C-alpha cells in the first residue's frame, strides 16, 4: 500500500481532482471537508502528507496549520498548501497570530495557488514525501 495522503478541502471538485492524482500515482488518499474534520482525521490516521486548503468552513487551513505545527506529535508531517488565498496573506495571518501571543510557526515548505496542473501536483507530492 502506498503512502497515505490526506486532502483537506471543502470543495468536492478539488478533492476529487487531488484524490485522482494521488490514486494515479499509487498513494492512498483520505479526505476531509474542513479543518475540524481534518484535524480529527490527522490524529486518528497520522498521514504521511497533508494537502491543505485555507478558506473552509468550521476551521480554516490557517488555524489547522498552526495547530499541526505547534503539536509535538504532528509537527513533522509535511504540508502542501493548495489554496486560492495568496501565500502573502497566509504568512501575514500567521505573523498576526504570533503577535497576538501564539507560538511562531515555520513557513509551509510548498505553497500552491489554485488551480494547479495535475503533473505539478504529482511532482510536489513526490518532492514533499522524499
Amino acid at each position, binding site marked *: 500500500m502506498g503512502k497515505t495522503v490526506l486532502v483537506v478541502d*471543502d470543495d468536492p471538485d478539488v478533492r476529487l481532482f487531488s484524490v485522482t492524482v494521488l490514486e494515479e500515482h499509487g498513494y492512498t488518499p483520505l479526505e476531509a471537508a474542513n479543518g475540524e474534520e481534518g484535524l480529527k482525521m490527522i490524529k486518528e490516521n497520522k498521514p504521511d502528507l497533508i494537502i491543505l486548503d*485555507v*478558506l*473552509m*468552513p*468550521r*476551521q*480554516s487551513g*490557517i*488555524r489547522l496549520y498552526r495547530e499541526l505545527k505547534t503539536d509535538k506529535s504532528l509537527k513533522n508531517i509535511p504540508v502542501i498548501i493548495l489554496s*486560492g*488565498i*495568496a501565500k502573502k*496573506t*497566509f504568512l*501575514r*495571518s500567521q505573523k*498576526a*497570530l504570533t*503577535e*497576538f*501571543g*501564539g507560538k511562531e510557526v515555520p513557513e509551509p515548505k510548498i505553497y500552491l495557488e489554485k488551480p494547479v496542473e495535475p503533473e505539478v501536483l504529482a511532482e510536489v507530492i513526490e518532492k514533499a514525501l522524499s
Partner: protein
Amino acid sequence: MLRRFFGQPKRRMADIMKIEKLLFVTKFEELGFDAVRSLLSLTKADLNHVVFINVIERDRFAMSRVGYRKDEEIRLREAANIRFIDWSEHLFEQGLEVGVYIVVGTLVSEVIKAAHKEETDLIVIGRSHKGVLEHLYSGSDVTELLRRAATPVLLYKHLSETAISIEKPFDRPLLAIDWSPASLRAVEYLKGLGDVVSEVSLVHVASDKDLKGTSAMEIQKTRKETRQKLEEICTLFETEGIDARAHVYIGDPDDEIEKAARDCQATMIVLGSSAKPAWVEKWLGSTPRKYAEESIYPTLLIPPVKK
C-alpha cells in the same frame, strides 16, 4: 486582544452573551465589504471569527429545456468565491478566522443551517427589496429569518439608503425596552459589549392609554415610575463602564422609536424580537418587523430564549 485568540474556553457559558463569531449573509448587491469593515469594531470585544455565506437561489439558474444549468451554477459559485477570497484575505491578515459557505438552496433555510453548524452568535443580513404587496402576500425572507433564528439578527442598511453614518453601528445603540423577556435579554447582550459601545440610549414608548389618571400629577407619576425602572437598567450598564441615558416617549412605538433614535443620534436600533406566531406577524405586523424592514437605522433584533 490576546483573549480573542488564546486561552479562551471553546464555548462560552450559557448565561454570557458574547459576539465571538458572526455569520455575514450577502448577495453582494445589497451588502458589501464596507458593511463588514464597519463591524470590525467588534474585535475590540470578542469577535474573532467571521463566516460568509452566499446562497444561490434556484431561480437564478432555472431549468432550461435542455435540463439543469450546471454551467450557470458553476459561474455563480465562482463569482462568489472570487469575491469572498478577496474579503477573506483582508480579514485573515488581521488575525481573524474566516469561513465561507457558497450554497444552492433557499436563503432562510441555508442561513439557519449554517448558523447552527457554525454556532454563530450573530447573523448579519441586508434588507430585502420586496415591495409592500409582495411583503403582504409572500412575507419576506427577513420576517422568516427572525421567526426561525435562535441567535440575534442584525438587519444592515446599505449606505446609499441612509443619511446617517454607520461607520461604527455599535457605538451608540438605542435600546427600545418594552419589558418583554426578549428586550431584557437585549440588555444582557449589550452589556457584554463594553469595549465597543460608548453610550446606550434606553427608551420606553408609553402609549396614550398607559397614562393613567386625569390629573397632571397622576400622568407625571406614571412617567416617573417608568423612568425609574429605566434608570435601574442604566445603572446595570454603568457598572459595566457603558454610559446610559433613559428616555420616555409617548405615542406609537412604530413611529416614536425612530424619532428617539434621531434625537439621540443613535447608530443602531436594538429591539427584542417578537414571539408572536407567524400568521399574526404577517397580518397584524409587529414593531420589530417594521423597524427591520423599514427603518433607515441598522436594526439589531434579539430573540426570546427559544424553548
